[in-house]
């Protein structure tokens, strides 16, 4: 009914095409996206809707089981507040409204069964800049009047709790501590800059989107101003000559030529994607063993879902 500034269909991302200059796409907040699917009984990778900032109004044309996770965008159904991080029923004819951020920036709406769209280059992830993915395949964000199709849900297994445990719900009103794996050209930065990088508060700039988030704070100096362009992974923290770091997110360009301090972990990139301009964040150096352990623990929650859903006998 109303589309708001930015509502995009996202599955886990577009993989295997980065050598063609095609970016990864996928949910900016992988953590909340994954939980929205989990709570509705959808397997990992199911497409759901990433709603940035709010302003979206949808009407259900049939009863749907849904879950909304991520940012609190003051969501209502027929003017009644909707509980987040749990499965609820959205009845035929009712209007679901995403208003404006209370805390966080991006909410995820999953429907039982998942949204249906034709994959482009193996994925429905919607990347407007590349004109790829989404409901029509051409990378267009949602527009007023769009009709969203939904796959028929498989019968609920009853094994999946429709409510997230309290401890897994992030508090986006608290300052973010972002884990950074040192790497790339970190040795080219001055000692003072490395001290500042990990001891200063950084402010999220308003130049922030799904390509990257600029941080402002002390000027970081590298002995390299530009390098021959090379592939950049999710969460890469590049520092252009103005000394203000840019954290590269899902829709980043596939190659780039500024020196980098390293990469945020995928979960920290997710957390940063929930920060509004002017919020303060800290960078915390992290070893790769600890980061891998944390990432695998996060993914393990969702590992057995597909098997349960398809009702396969345990082997």
């Amino acid at each position, binding site marked *: 009914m109303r589309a708001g500034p930015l509502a995009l269909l996202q599955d886990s991302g577009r993989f295997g095409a980065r050598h*063609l200059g095609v970016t990864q796409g996928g949910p900016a907040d992988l953590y909340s996206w994954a939980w929205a699917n989990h709570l509705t009984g959808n397997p990992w990778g199911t497409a759901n809707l990433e709603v940035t900032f709010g302003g979206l109004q949808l009407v259900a044309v049939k009863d749907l089981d849904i879950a909304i996770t991520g940012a609190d965008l003051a969501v209502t159904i027929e003017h009644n507040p909707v509980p987040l991080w749990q499965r609820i029923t959205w009845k035929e004819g009712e209007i679901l409204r995403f208003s404006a951020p209370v805390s966080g920036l991006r909410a995820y709406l999953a429907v039982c069964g998942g949204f249906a769209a034709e994959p482009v280059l193996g994925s429905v992830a919607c990347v407007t800049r590349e004109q790829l993915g989404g409901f029509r395949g051409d990378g267009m964000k949602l527009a007023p009047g769009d009709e969203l199709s939904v796959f028929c849900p498989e019968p609920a297994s009853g094994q999946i709790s429709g409510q997230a445990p309290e401890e897994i719900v992030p508090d986006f009103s608290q300052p973010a501590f972002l884990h950074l794996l040192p790497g790339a050209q970190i040795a080219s930065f001055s000692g003072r800059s490395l001290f500042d990088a990990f001891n200063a508060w950084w402010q999220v700039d308003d130049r922030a989107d799904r390509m990257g988030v600029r941080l402002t704070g002390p000027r970081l100096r590298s002995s390299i101003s530009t390098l021959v362009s090379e592939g950049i992974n999710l969460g890469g923290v590049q520092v252009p000559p103005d000394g203000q770091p840019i954290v590269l997110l899902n829709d980043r360009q596939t190659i780039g030529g500024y020196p980098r301090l390293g990469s945020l972990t995928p979960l920290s990139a997710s957390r940063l994607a929930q920060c509004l301009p002017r919020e303060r964040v800290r960078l915390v150096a992290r070893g790769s063993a600890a980061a891998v352990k944390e990432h695998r623990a996060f993914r393990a929650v969702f590992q057995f879902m597909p098997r349960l859903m398809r009702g396969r006998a345990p082997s």
Partner: protein
Amino acid sequence: MLESAGLDGWIVRLFEDINERNLPWLSALSQRCEQIFGDALIDLVPSYTTLLVVFDPLALSPSQSRAMICQILADLQPEDAVQDGQSHELPTWYDISVGPELPRVAEHAGLAVSEVIEAHSQRTYRVFALGFAPGFAFMGLVDPHLECPRLETPRQRVPVGSVALAGRQTAAYPTETPGGWNLLGRTSARLFDRKREGFSLLRVGDRVRFVSVSRETFEREGGNTQPMGSVT
């Protein structure tokens, strides 16, 4: 040399400088990674001097994947590259109406516009990297006389097919995007098509020649002759 690119990636740095002699090595390294990593491979991003290897962090730890790459590097041979790149000819209409920087590049080089067109279309270029946009191929190296810096102010919209030059590199725009390169003309070749097998016409390592064609040929091949006008 290996550099960390997060918990699921390594940058393999093989060279320091841009050179087409790097290409058979990078190609061989990509192929070996595909063989050795198998299903645990998520993405490979080759670029001028490096290869970014992205792997499944649930299947491999950073140290396991590092060991695998080191093993590949230990006996890497450029001859492993089965193909040394496909060859393409891109029909290109060089004209000031669609290539408004022809005079700028000519002045910079101290050449006539016709000499710029000849110099640009004579060489066979190699694709060093894809990036910036889907199917956008960075090619080189252009005749040193034609070397020309980017525009001070990038254009908001560069039309599809625009053939462009910056520094000693050349490219053709697969989709309409912003861009700061010098425009020399337009190609009718379809560079990126999400409905085509393989999607991108050009791949890293390919050989490309721009073939100067008449306006009539360009139009017949489906090229868009709409002039740039005064809008920049």
